[in-house]
């Protein structure tokens, strides 16, 4: 029997989808895989998926897809428990992999903000920071993006079944922009764009529509943010922290560069 045949002869992997501080958009991406959903359901035993089923199951999980950042003590305890019950833990989306948009509060003092927003701030139980999952437990793989790309999710699931390495390249958004034949907005329009330092995965969605990249997929390896600010059109020190303080602001090296530029705008209530 071939290795693949042997693999397919095994019981279906138990898959869980869980969320912490997040908007559910990433787990909905799984439902967006309409054409492949049946095949996925045949291959995987989806035992936990709050957006799709009210069925609840305890671990163990062969594969656990984790959405959301860790913002409360309760979430942290839950995450530690789930990690113990999971063989392969995959973080999905900018919140789980980088802290998400809510990590912008990490630059602020928690107390004064809560007092501004809530009539009874003492009822708000929250950790001082919203942090990515990898700050707390070992992460086996991550899918970047806000939200994640359905094709990357399918690729990851396929790779897990087949037993190969998922093809999630760490290259710039520019590479995909050029393959798609889009014209560089930095060079042709002087538009601020994080594409050169951001990991591909979105299909260069914004540049294709003439907008600069917002960095949804977070920094790639070798992200030379200092040169991007110093040398590319549309960006300079005055706007750097505004541009970087988005969905993946808390990921390095974006975080350090934001720090060096006085933190994100409006960090105080």
């Amino acid at each position, binding site marked *: 029997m071939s290795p693949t045949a042997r693999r397919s002869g095994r019981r279906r992997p138990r898959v869980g989808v869980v969320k912490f501080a997040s908007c559910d958009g990433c787990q909905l991406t799984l439902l967006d895989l309409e054409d492949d959903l049946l095949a996925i359901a045949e291959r995987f035993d989806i035992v936990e998926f709050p957006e799709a089923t009210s069925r609840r199951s305890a671990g163990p999980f062969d594969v656990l897809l984790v959405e959301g950042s860790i913002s409360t003590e309760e979430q942290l305890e839950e995450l530690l428990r789930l990690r113990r019950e999971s063989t*392969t833990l995959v973080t999905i989306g900018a919140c789980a992999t980088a802290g998400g948009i809510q990590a912008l509060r990490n630059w602020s003092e928690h107390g004064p903000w809560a007092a501004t927003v809530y009539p009874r701030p003492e009822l708000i139980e929250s950790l001082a920071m919203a942090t990515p999952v990898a700050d707390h437990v070992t992460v*086996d*793989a991550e899918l970047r993006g806000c939200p994640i790309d359905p094709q990357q999710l399918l690729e990851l699931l396929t*790779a*897990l079944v087949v*037993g*190969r*390495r*998922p093809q999630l390249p760490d290259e710039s958004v520019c590479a995909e922009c050029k393959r798609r034949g889009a014209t560089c907005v930095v060079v042709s329009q002087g538009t601020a764009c994080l594409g050169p330092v951001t990991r591909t995965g979105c299909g260069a969605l914004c540049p294709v529509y003439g907008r600069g990249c917002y960095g949804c997929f977070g920094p790639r390896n070798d992200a030379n943010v200092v040169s991007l600010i110093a040398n590319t059109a549309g960006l300079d020190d005055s706007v750097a922290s505004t541009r970087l303080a988005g969905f993946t602001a808390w990921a390095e090296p974006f975080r350090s560069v934001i720090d060096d530029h006085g933190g994100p705008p409006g960090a105080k209530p």
Partner: protein
Amino acid sequence: MSTRSTVDNALASGWFGAGLTDAARAHLADMAHLTSYPIGEVVIREGQAIDSLAVVVEGRLALRLNVPGRGAVTVLTIEPGDVIGWSALIPPHRATSTIVVLEPTSVVELEGAALRARLDEDPILAAAVLWRLLDAVARRLSATRTQLLDLFAQPDREPW
């Protein structure tokens, strides 16, 4: 008992002694004797005081370090021509590894204190001997560095 000419011939057979002048080798032979070890014999243990330098004539010896929980690890084997016991010349004169005999082995043994005294009073002999000793130690240092790099190691296992 080994005769002086047997010792001299034994010294001349390996790289350590082969390049020495006849005079230098004769000086060493005068103060040396042949020693044999059976398989399995522990020549010396790591940390023990060591009082002789030896040139291996035939056989094979293992230099071992003991790692608690992992047992004895052989880090180097010594072949004919090479030396053991260089610590006998350098303070604090303690063995840096345990030496175990893997094959029936004979060595030309030089008593440490006597050799040190002799080298102190004979700079020409000292230059010849220490030069070779430096070569032996440098080879081991270089080899140890290469072993540290663990060139054949596998990268970390990926989750797939």
